[in-house]
C-alpha cells in the first residue's frame, strides 16, 4: 500500500515538475513555514502588491531541516526554522544560504532581537537568519482541576496523576534540566558533561512517566485533551494556553517558576532557493508593523517587528500581562544555538524515555 502511495506521489511530483517547467511566467515564492504564520489575507495582499504568488507548505523544525537535507537545500525559497536550529544544521548539512542584510530593512525589526538572532545564526562570519515570530514554552494548566501546578516538576505530582502531558522532544529535556537546578545551555560546549546531565534528566522524566496521559505530538491533539478535561496540566506553548483561555477562563498559561523557555522563529533562505528576490520582498513585507500585527494575531504569538505591538489587539496583551509579570519575563530562558552533536545525545535519552518501561 505504501509503495502505491509513493508512486502516486512520484507521479504528482512529475506532473508538478512539468507544470513548473512550462509555466515559468508567474513568479512564485515557495514558503516552508509553521501553521498560521502566513494567513490568507496577508498572502493575498502580498500577491496584489508584488504579483508574486506564494506557495505554502506547513511543517515543524525537525521536518524543515529533514526536507532541506534531503535535497541539499532545494525545493523551497524561504524557510522559518527556530533561531537555535540554524547554525548546527548549517555546519552539518549546509542547507542554508547567507543572508544579504543590505536587502533587508533593519529598522523594521526590534533592534535587540535582531542582533541576538544574527549572533545566534552566524556561521563563519556569515548571518543565516533574522527573527520573525517569538513566544515561549511553559505550562498550560486547568487552574480549577490542578491549582497546585506552578513548575515543570509539578507535572509529576500525585495531584495530576494520569492527567499530565508533555512532548517527548528536546524542550522538555531542557525545561526539566532547569527545573532540577541544572544549566543545560552552559553544558552545550562539553558533550561529555551534557550527556551526563541528560542522563539525569532522562531518569527524572522516566519517574514522571507514570503521570503522563500521552506524549503529545500535534498541538490540536493536546488542546482537545485539555478542552475535554482528559489532560489538566501540560508543558506547551503560550499561544495554545491563551487560545484555550479565551474559551475557558479556568485554563491559563503559567510561566513556570524555573523559567519559561523563549524561542524565536526566523526567516532563512535555503541553499538552493531559486527566488531570493521574492524571499527578501516577503520578509520586508512581513515586518511592516500593520502586516506583522495581522500575522501575530493569526499565530497568537508576538512578532519581532518594531511597532507592531501597538497595533495588536487588547486580549492577547492582557493574557500576556497575566501570564508574565515582570520577574517572569526576566526569567525567560532563551535558547542558544544548538551545536552539532547535541541532538544525538538528546535523541537517545528521548528514545529510552519513549520505549522504556
Amino acid at each position, binding site marked *: 500500500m505504501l509503495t502505491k502511495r509513493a*508512486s502516486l506521489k512520484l507521479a504528482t511530483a512529475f506532473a508538478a515538475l512539468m507544470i513548473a517547467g512550462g509555466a515559468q511566467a508567474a513568479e512564485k515564492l515557495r514558503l516552508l513555514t509553521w501553521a498560521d504564520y502566513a494567513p490568507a489575507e496577508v498572502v493575498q495582499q502580498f500577491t496584489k502588491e508584488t504579483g508574486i504568488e506564494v506557495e505554502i507548505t506547513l511543517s515543524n523544525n525537525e521536518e524543515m531541516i529533514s526536507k532541506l537535507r534531503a535535497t541539499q537545500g532545494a525545493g523551497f525559497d524561504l524557510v522559518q526554522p527556530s533561531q537555535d536550529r540554524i547554525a548546527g544544521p548549517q555546519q552539518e548539512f549546509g542547507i542554508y544560504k547567507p543572508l544579504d542584510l543590505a536587502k533587508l530593512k533593519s529598522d523594521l525589526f526590534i533592534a535587540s532581537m535582531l542582533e541576538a538572532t544574527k549572533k545566534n545564526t552566524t556561521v563563519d562570519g556569515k548571518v543565516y537568519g533574522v527573527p520573525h515570530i517569538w513566544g515561549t514554552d511553559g505550562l498550560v494548566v486547568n487552574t480549577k482541576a490542578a491549582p497546585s501546578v506552578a513548575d515543570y516538576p509539578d507535572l509529576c505530582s500525585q495531584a495530576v496523576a494520569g492527567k499530565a502531558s508533555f512532548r517527548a522532544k528536546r524542550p522538555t529535556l531542557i525545561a526539566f534540566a532547569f527545573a532540577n537546578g541544572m544549566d543545560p545551555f552552559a553544558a552545550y560546549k562539553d558533550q561529555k558533561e551534557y550527556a551526563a546531565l541528560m542522563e539525569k534528566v532522562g531518569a527524572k522524566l522516566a519517574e514522571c512517566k507514570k503521570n503522563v496521559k500521552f506524549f503529545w505530538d500535534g498541538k490540536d491533539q493536546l488542546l482537545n485533551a485539555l478542552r475535554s478535561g482528559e489532560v489538566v496540566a501540560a508543558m506547551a506553548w503560550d499561544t495554545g494556553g491563551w487560545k484555550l483561555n479565551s474559551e475557558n477562563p479556568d485554563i491559563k498559561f503559567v510561566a513556570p517558576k524555573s523559567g519559561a523557555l523563549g524561542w524565536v522563529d526566523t526567516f532563512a533562505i535555503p541553499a538552493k532557493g531559486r527566488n531570493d528576490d521574492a524571499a527578501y520582498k516577503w520578509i520586508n513585507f512581513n515586518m511592516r508593523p500593520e502586516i506583522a500585527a495581522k500575522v501575530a494575531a493569526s499565530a497568537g504569538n508576538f512578532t519581532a517587528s518594531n511597532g507592531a505591538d501597538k497595533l495588536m489587539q487588547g486580549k492577547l496583551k492582557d493574557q500576556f500581562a497575566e501570564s508574565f509579570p515582570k520577574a517572569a519575563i526576566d526569567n525567560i530562558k532563551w535558547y542558544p544555538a544548538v551545536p552539532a552533536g547535541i541532538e544525538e545525545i538528546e*535523541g537517545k535519552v528521548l*528514545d529510552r524515555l*519513549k*520505549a522504556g518501561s
Partner: protein
Amino acid sequence: MMPARKLALFLLLAPAVLWLGLLILLPHVEILILSFSERVGPRVYAFGLGNYLEFFTEPLYWRTFARTAVMSILVTALTLVLAFPIALYIARVAQGRLKAMLLLLCLLPFWVSELVRTLGWMMLLRETGLISYLLQRVGLASQPVEMLYNDGAVILGLVYGGLLFMIVPLANALESLEPSVVEAGYDLGGSRWTVLRRIVIPHATPGIVAGSIIVFMLTVGNFATPVLLGGKNGLWFTEQIYAQFITRFNWPQGAAFGMLLLVLSSVIVWLGLRLSGQSLGTTLRQA
C-alpha cells in the same frame, strides 16, 4: 516478425521492470549503502558497521524490534482466528449474491484511508468517547474509562486493518475444497472437530500461510496505527526508523534500522514457512 514480438514483450514488461527497478530495487540499494556510513564529524562520513552494531549493543533498539515482532505475530494469530469462520462461511455456505455482498462488506472499510479508520477508533475508544459514554450510561462504569493509548488498542486496530488480507486468501483456498471429501469424512464417523482438523485445515494451509505472511508483513511495517492508538510505553519499530530519519537527522542509523527490519521480518516469515512445511511458491499461488 520476431523483432516485433520481442519489442511487444519488452514494452509489456517495461512498466513492471521500471517499477521494480526504480521504486523498489534502487531505493533499497541506496538505503543499504547509506546504512554503512558513519558520521565522523560535520559533513564527514566513513564506511563502517557501527549502525548495525548499535542495534545489537543498545538494548533499547532490539527490544523495540522484539516487541514489535512478538506483537505482530500475536496480531497475525488473532486475525487468523477471527477470519477463519468468516472465510469458511463465505466460501462454503454463502451463495450467489449473498457471497458477493459479504465480500463487499469486508472490502468496504478499505474505501477510506487507514488514517481515517484509525481516527474512527480513537473517537470510539477515548475517555470522552462513545464506548466510555455508553458504559457510564448503562451503569457498568462509574467514571470515564480510558481504552486508548495502550497495547490492546494497537492490537485491535491492527487486527481490524489486517482482516481483509486474511479473509481473501483463506476464502480462495477453502473454495477449492471438494464437498464430497468433507461428506466422506462425516461418513467415516468423523466428528465436526475431526473433519475440521484433519480435512479442512490441511486443505486451507496454503491460504492460511499466505494470509499470515501478508498480515504479518503489513503489521510489522505499519506506522500510523501504532503511533495513533499506542501509548507512552509502546514504541513500534517503524517509529524508531522515522525518529532516526526525521527528528535525529541520523539517516545512516535509520537506514540500518530499515534494512534490519526487512531482513529480520523476512527471517521470521522464512521460519514460519519452514515450521508449516510450506514453500513460498505454493503460498504465492494462493495469495
